[in-house]
């Protein structure tokens, strides 16, 4: 069995309003940061997982992302995978 470290990024789709991102953007400007054009908040999920090779692990992660980590009505996901 191979072990992999996976980092999953879940982001709100561009068309979906992100009120938390807007509020953080507003606070960033109040802090004095200049030039912020856009600020959106997502999630990063770290998973350590084992399986027989990268393809099998990708299948498992795809299922987790599609069914649990992200709600694909409003969110997109992507992930990176590193063999340990």
């Amino acid at each position, binding site marked *: 069995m191979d072990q992999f470290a996976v980092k999953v990024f879940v982001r709100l789709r561009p068309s*979906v*309003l992100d*009120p*938390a991102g807007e*509020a953080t953007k507003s606070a960033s400007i109040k802090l004095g940061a200049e030039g912020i054009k856009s600020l959106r908040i997502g999630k990063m999920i770290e998973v350590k997982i084992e399986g027989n090779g990268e393809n099998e692990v990708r299948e498992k992660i795809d299922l987790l992302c599609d069914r*649990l980590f992200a*709600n694909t*009505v*409003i969110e997109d996901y992507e992930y990176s995978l590193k063999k340990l």
Partner: protein
Amino acid sequence: MDNFTVGVVVFPGSNCDRDVLWALEGCLDIRTKYLWHESSDLSDVDAIVLPGGFSYGDYLRCGAIARFSPLINALDDFVKSGRRVLGICNGFQILTESGFLPGVLTANKNLNFICDDVELDIVSLKGGWFNDGGKKQTIKLPIAHGEGRYYCDSDTLKKLVDSELIALKYKNNPNGSSFDIAGITNEKGNVLGLMPHPERACDETIGGTDGLFTLKSLILK
């Protein structure tokens, strides 16, 4: 009808389960029992309420974890059998996450947790949840949520409108919901999800009785 029993589902973090039980038993004299979320035996209940609260602490997304409970797995056959399911607030969020109803509920536009009475237009009578014989076109119910902004893509919205699945709309949209949506049903009409709390409007002494009819309609066949 004497033995008609409504199951009120209790998740870790549910907090309106007792309110629903009080409204059903105390105000409407409908036999009610709690169903722990790990139970998958729904054979002795005739209708189900998924109450409000913060199931599993709203971790990941509201309703996302509750969806994987044994009870929600068993709900598919229950719904297909035509029996009625009412999801209130967090219950509505669970019904969308688990695919019984389309769309999703996400953070209110202004980020506030809104606790208020709202005026609602009754849009569709599908399923009989708001069919009081045409006495009222508008009702007043309390809302209490931080993540009640209904969102769906334009194709889904068109389907909701064309199939008359939008049950309730806010008169003055408090949270940024698409198309002012406050509650929807499935195609068959036996599943209703809504953000407002009918169980908190069942006695004049606490501000109104506009929620009684919807709870009472749980016993419709």
